[in-house]
């Protein structure tokens, strides 16, 4: 450190002079022997100390401002730090004892006390010095801020302009030529450049604002978002397992079989098993006796209205159409509930009379008993008709003149369906009209096609049936597969001794002709209220049968005269058939062609044999397949069997809906049940009744029940299982005239109806009670057994009969032989007699034995023996 202390000679005089110079009445300070007053101490401050206390000469402390206030603490610190070296060490005690915090250090440039600085030791002196005007003046800069004293600076300057001097008045004289007026005006100095001098501001190019970089704090905070995710834990699960049973190989089995343990086991268990089996044989341990008492009908009928007779449900008769007419045939509509079709024909007695209404088939519906739904027009009386099994809109009918007709009622089916019990008939207005009008409201459908007159039957068609959709028949009568799965063939029979087979399709050769020849058919109909459907236009008037079957008599010449027939209705109900039924309606018959018979697959399991009931009361069993005889021409084979069971014309030959080979035939004064295959005779032939049996019909739900209609208008219900010689129920005089037709139908499981039509044209619908439609336990099994039994007993009977007749013949022979014996003289009479006797006695014994076997031996004689 370079001490900068300049020693100046202390100037006593100055100090004093200072004091004197003030002249403010201050008492002069006591001076010490040292040459300076007691309350000050001259100090030598090194430059380091000067810097420390900010009292550097000529920088912090000058002549003008010589005072410096130092903090006592700082001085003490300095003294502590530098101990003896400190400049303040000589005044150490005084400083420590100094009462105030600040000490005055005065810079003495004049060196009044011998040093540059001097420290004022007492507070009074400090105050004295400081408060001296000199001091005060010089401390102006050190003055602490004082309260602002208003010196008038806040006042607005009222007088902006202050004249510094008096305004000068100048008088100017201008010598001008013309003494005109002088006009003074103001001029803006900014207008001309000369008017003023301006120091414009300009950008100082040297002036730069230094750009400094400042640190700025940035904090990056990550955005945290909670998210979750769940995975489906795939649990392996077995979906399929394939396993094989564990088995022993034969060697293992053999070893096991030889083991002792197996022996023991057998010994122990087999007696138990035998015991159980024996128990089984003795009695049925598990038989519920209580339940076995039930007869199959529900014991508790809580309806209260139980009746076990036929209940009349509805009667249909129509004055216009049914007047003086008889119903020749009736059919239930196969699909639509409550619709029945009846064919009205003229009565036999009234053939000559003019009939009011033309021949018709009338459709009745349950929903409207007063008038028919619609009518089918026919050229002549219809004796038989049938709905097609695959498409109930097609109806085939056979006429009195031998023609076969086809109707298509698909246009009117919706009309009938609209009048179902569920829907409201909107034709309430029809009540307002009279009967004539309502008659005209009934639509009439004309037939679509009629067979060619030359090739139809020569006698009335008495029976017509569709072949089921499962098979069709070729020209030779062979049953083949039916590709369309639709009923397309019809069989008709007529008393002209033939059965004819018809096909609804065109034969393959005649593909072009029909459409041109029959355009005029439509216009000839006066009665038509609607257009004729064109379904069978291709057949109209040109329809020919495929082939015909004649029934020649077995033993004699001539032919049988068929009235009704029945063939086995072979139906296979497969899934495919049910599907196809839905699409049946789209079939266009005119486009169908009879395929070549070679292409179709022959069906072996179809039974082509059929039963025919004739006019004379015979039942014929024949085959419709044509055979080709020697000349190569096909002809029908002779019937297999003929049974003469009825005495008058057969009016029903019907197969049982439960058994394919059981038939019911009625005719004359009795009825008979036949089994196909039993060629000897009817299984059951009833007694001869007083009244003729006019019609017979099997029940659709009970295999043992059938209905018989009589000439006196009564209906009998027979149950073969209960009693085969008497009817179960007799409903006498249901109608005044004879029953002509009867058909049963069931729409739901609970609703069974029997339609009974009579000679007066009245159709009655009966509801079959539960007792008659619920089959009893194992009824069909029992019936089967019954029929089998009957067949056997029939065989038995016939055998016995045969034997008995043979025996009778033998007896007769023997008797004649005996008579002849006495005429022979050759053999000795005694011997002969003995021989005869032995022979005779042998015969007698034999006879006795035989008759005993047959049970014909009179009991009285037996008891004698």
């Amino acid at each position, binding site marked *: 450190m370079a001490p900068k202390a300049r020693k100046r000679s202390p100037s006593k005089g100055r100090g004093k002079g200072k004091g004197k110079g003030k002249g403010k009445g201050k008492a002069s300070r006591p001076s010490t022997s040292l040459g300076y007053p007691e309350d000050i101490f001259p100090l030598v401050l090194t430059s380091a100390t000067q810097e420390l206390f900010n009292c550097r000469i000529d920088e912090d402390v000058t002549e003008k401002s010589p005072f410096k206030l130092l903090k006592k603490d700082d001085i003490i610190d300095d003294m502590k730090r530098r101990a003896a070296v400190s400049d303040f060490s000589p005044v150490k005690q005084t400083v420590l004892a100094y009462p105030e915090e600040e000490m005055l250090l005065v810079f003495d440039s004049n060196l009044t006390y011998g040093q540059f600085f001097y420290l004022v030791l007492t507070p009074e002196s400090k105050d004295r010095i400081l408060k001296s005007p000199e001091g005060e003046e010089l401390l102006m800069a050190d003055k602490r801020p004082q309260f602002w004293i208003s010196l008038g600076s806040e006042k607005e300057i009222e007088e902006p302009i202050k004249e510094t001097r008096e305004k000068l008045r100048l008088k100017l004289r201008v010598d001008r030529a013309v003494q005109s007026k002088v006009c003074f005006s103001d001029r803006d100095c900014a207008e001309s450049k000369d008017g003023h001098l301006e120091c414009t501001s300009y950008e100082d190019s040297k002036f730069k604002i230094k750009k400094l970089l400042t640190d700025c704090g940035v904090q990056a905070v990550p955005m945290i978002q909670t998210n979750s995710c769940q995975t489906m834990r795939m649990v392996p699960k077995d979906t399929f397992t394939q396993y094989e049973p*564990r*088995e022993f190989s034969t060697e293992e089995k053999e070893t096991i079989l030889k083991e002792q*343990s*197996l022996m023991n*086991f057998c010994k122990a*268990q087999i007696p*138990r098993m035998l015991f*159980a*089996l024996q128990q089984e044989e003795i009695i049925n341990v598990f038989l519920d006796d209580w339940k076995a008492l039930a007869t199959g009908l529900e014991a508790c009928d809580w309806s209260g209205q139980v009746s076990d007779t036929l209940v009349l449900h509805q009667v249909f008769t129509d004055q216009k159409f049914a007047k003086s007419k008889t119903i020749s045939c009736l059919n239930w509509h196969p699909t639509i509930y409550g619709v029945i079709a009846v064919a009205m024909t003229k009565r036999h007695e009234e053939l000559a009379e003019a009939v009011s209404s033309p021949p018709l088939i009338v459709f009745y519906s349950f929903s409207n008993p007063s008038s028919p739904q619609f009518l089918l027009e026919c050229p002549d009386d219809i004796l038989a008709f049938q709905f097609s099994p695959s498409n109930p809109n097609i109806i085939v009918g056979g006429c009195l003149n031998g023609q076969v007709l086809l109707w298509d009622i698909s246009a009117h089916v919706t009309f009938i369906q609209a009048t179902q019990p569920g829907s409201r008939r909107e034709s309430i207005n029809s009540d307002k009209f009279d009967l004539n009008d309502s008659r005209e409201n009934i639509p009439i459908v004309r037939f679509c096609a009629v067979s060619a007159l030359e090739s139809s039957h020569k006698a009335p068609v008495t029976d017509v049936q569709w072949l089921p959709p499962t098979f069709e028949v070729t020209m030779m009568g062979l049953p083949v597969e039916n590709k369309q799965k639709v009923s397309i063939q019809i069989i008709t029979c007529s008393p002209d001794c033939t059965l004819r087979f018809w096909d609804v399709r065109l034969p393959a050769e005649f593909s072009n002709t029909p459409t041109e020849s029959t355009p005029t058919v439509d216009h000839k109909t006066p009665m038509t209220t609607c257009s004729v459907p064109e379904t069978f236009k291709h057949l109209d008037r040109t329809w020919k049968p495929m082939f015909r079957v004649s029934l020649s008599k077995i033993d004699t010449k001539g032919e049988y005269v068929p009235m009704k027939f029945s063939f086995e209705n072979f139906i296979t109900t497969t899934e495919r058939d049910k599907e196809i039924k839905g699409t049946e309606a789209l079939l266009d018959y005119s486009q169908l062609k009879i395929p070549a018979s070679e292409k179709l697959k022959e069906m072996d399991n179809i039974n082509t044999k059929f039963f025919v009931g004739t006019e004379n009361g015979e039942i014929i069993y024949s085959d419709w397949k044509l055979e080709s005889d020697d000349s190569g021409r096909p002809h029908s084979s002779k019937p297999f069997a003929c049974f003469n069971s009825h005495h008058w014309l057969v009016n029903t030959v019907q197969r049982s809906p439960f058994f394919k080979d059981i038939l019911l035939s009625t005719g004359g004064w009795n009825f008979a049940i036949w089994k196909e295959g039993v060629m000897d005779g009817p299984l059951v032939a009833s007694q001869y009744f007083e009244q003729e049996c006019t019609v017979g019909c099997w029940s659709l739900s009970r295999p043992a029940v059938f209905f018989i209609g009589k000439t006196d208008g009564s209906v009998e219900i027979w149950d073969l299982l209960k009693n085969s010689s008497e009817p179960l129920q007799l409903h006498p005089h249901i109608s005044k005239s004879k029953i002509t037709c009867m058909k049963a139908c069931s729409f739901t499981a609970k609703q069974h109806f029997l339609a009974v039509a009579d000679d007066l044209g009245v159709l009655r619908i009966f509801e079959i009670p539960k007792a008659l439609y619920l089959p009893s336990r194992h009824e069909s099994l029992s019936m089967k057994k019954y029929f089998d039994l009957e067949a056997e007993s029939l065989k038995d009977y016939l055998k016995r009969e045969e034997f008995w007749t043979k025996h009778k013949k033998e007896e007769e022979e023997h008797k004649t032989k005996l008579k002849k014996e006495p005429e022979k003289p050759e053999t000795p009479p005694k011997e002969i007699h003995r021989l005869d006797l032995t022979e005779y006695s042998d015969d007698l014994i034999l006879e006795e034995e035989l008759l005993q076997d047959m049970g014909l031996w009179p009991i009285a004689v037996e008891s004698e023996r």
Partner: protein
Amino acid sequence: MAEVEETLKRIQSQKGVQGIIIVNSEGIPVKSTLDNQSTVQYSALIHQLVMKARSTLRDIDPQNDLTFLRVRSKKNEIMIAPDKDYFLIVIQNPSA
């Protein structure tokens, strides 16, 4: 082995017996008079039934054990005689 055959014949000769099967304790058929498929089916199913029946009885009363089981159905009756190592199954049609 002949003994076994002989006793089985005795059972077979009873009225209405349709089949006999001897099954071991695991359900594997040892001897049978029916065809393989039916045998295997019967033995597997009846084995399970017998196990169930046995366990049922023993759960109710541990001192008890199954001696004979008869299953009567609409068409026939199945009789089962269980033992420690084997069981004997006889199928009978009582009405035949």
